[in-house]
């Protein structure tokens, strides 16, 4: 009889022992377990991404020669435009460096751009993250800024051997310093829990009282140097309404983010060329 009772509570006893063990196990062991399981899964996602690329390659091979010639012409036009822009950028950069030298300004943070494919999107009510196909193999650091053609994407939160996880700008866990275009005063941007209907949204806080936004002339929220993660001037979103915040001193409002954030295929990771020097770097 006693044996029968023990058998019946065996699953609960095992659960209790496991919970106790899980509570006692040091964080190092848990981190090791997580890293091991994640690294074991990563090759499958990398392989899926390469297969996706192969599929696209074969899909493009089925295009006719006329279509390819047209696409080639389009690329040639874009290339000449980008070459012109590149020359202009170089001239402007030289001019900036000359002026900085005259004014004896402290050095700015410089970044290296590492373009990476998105292998997975985990966008739900509970988390807003993407996984990219580059990790420690390309020296991606934790905390690096991630951008795309439409502006800020997010920040790297976890780096594996082959992949990295990026917290999206839409996530409530994401917060950054920003400013409105043409106004140097800093504000705070934070992601919001997404409803899943309509474009993604964020929120802006600590906007000065004299800033006015309207649906006719929405304000552009851009990144700032503050924090040192993002270069200045990258688009975060548009603000078409501001109202007094809970303190009454500052204003707050919703930020309309780029809808393309939900279907990203390629992003660029900004890797600082040198570590932050708190003494000499511009904040």
């Amino acid at each position, binding site marked *: 009889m006693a044996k029968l009772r023990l058998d019946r509570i065996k699953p609960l006893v095992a659960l209790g022992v496991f919970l106790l063990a*899980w509570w006692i196990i040091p964080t190092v062991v848990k981190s090791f*377990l997580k890293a091991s399981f994640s690294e074991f*899964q990563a090759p499958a996602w990398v392989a899926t991404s390469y297969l996706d690329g192969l599929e696209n390659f074969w899909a493009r091979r089925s295009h006719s020669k006329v279509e390819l010639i047209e696409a080639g012409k389009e690329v040639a036009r874009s290339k000449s435009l980008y070459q012109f822009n590149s020359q202009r950028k170089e001239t402007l950069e030289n001019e900036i460096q000359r002026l900085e030298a005259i004014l004896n300004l402290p050095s700015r943070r410089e970044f290296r751009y590492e373009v990476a494919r998105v292998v*997975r*999107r985990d*966008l*739900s*009510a509970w988390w807003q993250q993407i996984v990219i196909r580059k990790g420690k193999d390309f020296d991606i650091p934790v905390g690096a800024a991630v951008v795309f053609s439409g502006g800020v994407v997010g920040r790297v939160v976890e780096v594996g051997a082959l992949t990295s996880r990026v917290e999206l700008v839409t996530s409530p866990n994401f917060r950054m310093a920003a400013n409105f275009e043409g106004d140097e005063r800093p504000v705070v941007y934070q992601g919001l829990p*997404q409803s899943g209907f309509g474009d993604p949204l964020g929120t802006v806080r600590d906007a000065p009282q004299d800033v006015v936004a309207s649906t006719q002339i929405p304000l552009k929220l851009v990144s700032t140097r503050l924090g040192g993660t993002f270069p200045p001037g990258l688009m975060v979103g548009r603000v078409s309404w501001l109202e007094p915040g809970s303190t009454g001193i500052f204003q707050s409002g919703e930020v309309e983010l780029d809808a393309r954030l939900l279907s990203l295929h390629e992003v660029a990771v900004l890797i600082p060329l040198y570590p932050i020097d708190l003494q000499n770097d511009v904040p």
Partner: protein
Amino acid sequence: MFLDPRAILFFGANALLLYLTMLVNSALAGWSIYLLILGPMLVFPVLYLRHQSYFICTLLTGLWVDAALPSGFGLFTVGFLFAGAFTFQMRIRFRAESNYHLTVLAHGVNFFCILLVTIAMGSAYITSLGFWLQVLVTGLASHLVLLIVAPWFFNFERMLFTLCRLEPEPEDLPIL
């Protein structure tokens, strides 16, 4: 035998189900639809295996899910073992040969997983209407898809028994 070979089979099938779900989620991200289909992973190990093999299979599955999803590490490991321990005690009540009971059980476990992750990850946004709206949509979509996926997954696991020439009957159940 220390470990029932079927435990390895179940773990492999669970990893495959998770991989396919995440592929679908990745493709559906543009439509803001997310599927959380974890319920079927627990059903066969609980009903078919002895306690030792069930425990190892569920533990590995939980760790695998925890490593794949951005939730706190250990959430699904503990959650699976918790749900599994209670289901294991009641397993005599479920008929494993047909999909009806198994599908109901899968829905129950899946609902528990959605509840668990909502409590663990969403406690900070409890006042946000948008958050609850998306949880509702996710829950409805997941359980609708589960109506199709669960029977397919169970039949797939039975097919694996046949292919691998393993015992297709649940173990350790009392003869009625």
